[in-house]
């Protein structure tokens, strides 16, 4: 009978799959991998509906992402800021917080970095000092903008999702004014056609690795190093233990003598610092000036990437590269296959959906085991614990 034949095929396929999974210890990666496959299938259906061969479109997309060394460099370059914003989200998740404010922290960090980078004495400072100063400035800007909602949460119980949404808008209007205003003239470069700051000092520019579009610079090593640093902190240090404990059970943490408020404030501020650092590296390495529009959606995408990576700092690196390369490759798909780049956005939304709702994936692919650990951030509603 065909039924039993199918069954046998099913079983042998399952066995084959299991051997691969076991050999490469892929178990924790299965859900994200299947989620990505599923999302591309859905994207392909959409592409087919508009009358384009999905394989042609995806082939163009893949070549757009990795088709040449320049394109690979461009894709990597595009991924760098996402590493920072995803780290920001992941670290906050670990502390049980939901930092929707990476968007605003990027803006403030980018602005402070650009502002410090245009200081007059920077031109006489050697790069070995000037670059860290600019990066540190962005880090501090993000730190402060993350510290505010952390402090509000700790002191008044104001939920960080709400206050960071407000702070995003406040930051947006604030930097827009600082960069737009001609009278008084604050940070605007009056010679530029679009509102942006002046060029930072040459000494403060991160060295370039490849002249791709966008250009790949040393910022990628900085961000990857931060990933490993954070991984170590979370896994091995007492501070990391305290942070995760607070995230899992703030009441028990308080009982056990952990200063919960200090952890909340530090987690939000450091989370903001990661975003600020990412913005500074962009300002210093990619643009050499600050223009608010360049940071749009990087913070929001960080949410998706952090979830895709299950808030694991190391997993954030490939997840960010996937995210950034998709965005970098999409224009070629539009050019060659005439498919709107927004398909990539839809695919990304689907990836997030399937990773978050892993029950769907487990059902479709008949995976064994219970649903994985969920990120419990912000599960208690708006009004705090």
């Amino acid at each position: 009978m065909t039924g039993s034949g199918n069954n046998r095929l099913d079983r042998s396929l399952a066995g084959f799959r299991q051997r691969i999974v076991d050999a490469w210890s892929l178990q924790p990666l299965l859900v994200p991998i299947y989620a990505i496959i599923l999302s591309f299938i859905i994207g392909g259906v959409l592409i087919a509906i508009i009358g384009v061969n999905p394989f042609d479109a995806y082939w163009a997309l893949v070549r757009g992402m990795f088709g040449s060394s320049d394109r690979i460099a461009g894709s990597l370059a595009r991924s760098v800021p996402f590493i920072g914003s995803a780290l920001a989200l992941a670290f906050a998740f670990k502390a049980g917080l939901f930092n929707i404010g990476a968007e605003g922290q990027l803006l403030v960090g980018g602005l402070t970095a650009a502002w410090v980078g245009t200081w007059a004495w920077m031109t006489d400072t050697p790069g070995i000092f000037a670059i860290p100063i600019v990066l540190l400035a962005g880090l501090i800007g993000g730190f402060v903008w993350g510290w505010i909602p952390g402090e509000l949460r700790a002191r008044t119980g104001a939920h960080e999702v709400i206050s960071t949404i407000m702070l995003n808008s406040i930051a947006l209007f604030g930097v827009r004014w600082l960069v737009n205003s001609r009278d008084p003239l604050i940070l605007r470069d009056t010679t530029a056609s679009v509102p942006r700051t002046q060029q930072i000092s040459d000494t403060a520019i991160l060295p370039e690795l490849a002249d791709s579009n966008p250009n790949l610079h040393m910022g990628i090593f900085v961000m990857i190093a931060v990933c490993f640093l954070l991984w170590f902190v979370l896994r091995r240090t007492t501070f990391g233990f305290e942070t995760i404990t607070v995230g899992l059970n703030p009441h028990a943490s308080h009982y056990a003598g952990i200063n919960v408020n200090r952890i909340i404030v530090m987690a939000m501020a450091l989370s903001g610092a990661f975003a600020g650092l990412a913005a500074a590296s962009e300002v210093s390495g990619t643009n050499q000036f600050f223009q608010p529009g360049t940071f749009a959606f990087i913070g929001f995408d960080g949410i998706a990437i952090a979830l895709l990576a299950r808030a694991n700092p190391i997993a954030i690196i490939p997840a960010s590269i996937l995210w950034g390369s998709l965005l970098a490759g999409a224009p070629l798909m539009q050019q060659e296959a005439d498919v709107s780049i927004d398909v990539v956005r839809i695919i990304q939304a689907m990836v997030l959906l399937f990773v978050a709702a892993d029950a769907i994936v487990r059902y479709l692919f008949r995976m064994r085991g219970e649903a994985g650990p969920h990120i419990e951030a912000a599960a208690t509603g708006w009004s705090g614990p």
Partner: protein
Amino acid sequence: MSTADERTPVLEVFGVTKTFPGVVANEDVDFTLHQGEIHCLLGENGAGKSTLMNVVFGLYQPDQGTIKVRGEQVQMEGVHDAIDHGIGMVHQHFQLIPVFTVAENVILGDELTNGPFLDLKEARRRIREIEEKYGLAVDPDIKVGDLSVGEQQRVELVKALFREADILILDEPTAVLTPGEVDDFFGVVRSLVDQGKSIIFITHKLREVLAVADRITVLRGGKVAGTADPKTATQQSLANLMVGRDVVFQVEKGEAKPGEPVLRIKNLAVEDDRGVQTVNGFSVEVRAGEIFGIAGVEGNGQRELVEAVTGMRHNVGGTVEILGINATKLPPRKITELGTAHIPEDRNKHGLVGSYTIADNLVLNRYHHESFARRWIRDHHAIHKEAESLVKQYDVRTPAVQVPVNTLSGGNQQKVIVARELTGEVEVLFVSQPTRGLDVGSIEFIHNQIIALRDRGAAVLLVSAELDEILSLSDRIGVLYRGRLVGTFEGKEATREQLGYLMATGATPESEQAS
């Protein structure tokens, strides 16, 4: 006996089995309730009483078994079926909405409407009618969150009666009441029976069973262990049936050898989360080598008191002195470092991080000590070794120390907390509701650990809602009423009646007459 059998059965349960993943909560249970009787369902925590009643009330679907109401077989697909068949349930944890008024709470799900709109006027009238008929006075327009626990229980009863329930399931209804209020409540229950209601009364308290039951069914480990007649049964016989072996009621305890006072609390004042001052001029001195038990109805400031002395909550007045050091404003960690330990009231909320391993939970308050961390780098190996030895010492039943603590049973979870807290130099122990929801074996183990600590010379401040626990463990007993001590007794001299009266009124009968 014979009179009950002549009555008509109103609710019959045959062969009900209900399993949850990994647990058989009910196995082949038969149960019959007759018209106009009070049928007590007796059993230890975890014996399956509440599960059985949730099956009857349609909240759980049984795996096997049938239910008959008034001789007619019914399928309970949801709560609404149970309500339609005239079954009402007062849950152990009240199912009320604090921001709604009494009237809104009562009509919810069975709303009276006038056209498309709620008819609260008619609802009020009907509620007042019910209240008068059964003597359950509560103002229908007050927000439930502003009511006392006793009043909230009345609202729960009104809810069931509003739905014209004539089979009432009362799940541990006396847990929140003082001994005096319990007597009043029994009066209400009897008047309900006089008005033609039939009642299932769930409890684990033997005294209450004998005082109120017409008939008794005992559950043990999810099965019916037997039935008993309250006229012939004794507390001892019921206890043996409930636990399945001979139970020693009295805790084995030697004479206390109290030393110097090591815990001095003076005029302590503490506010709860809403800003109400629930501890109000509380003063006590506890000496080394004695157990001081605090009795009181829940909600009289016990939680805030313990949280304030352990540093978890700010106090608004008064002083706390531990081992001669002023600990009034110290944070939890500093207070622990003075040589104190704290077994918290709510083990899941405060005591444990559920998804952490047993090992991490065993060092939850010591992870930063030199032995478990070099500067700020954690030493996983040392933690593992410590955990292995504690698990053995405290008889925690687990396959490994690396499993998440939330996979353990309640008793073993509590043992993890006790192991962590009683390790090291403990000179003052704060312990709150240490055996809530545990089986008899775990209760005995934990009681013995507390007494052993006392015998090593530690001072113990014990807070418990179980009067029996207070009476059997304490060397001295204080009664907490509205946030202050209203009387202290020597443990051997105190009687239930004395304590109960104080807990309910805040005054002794003599002083009441005097004023």
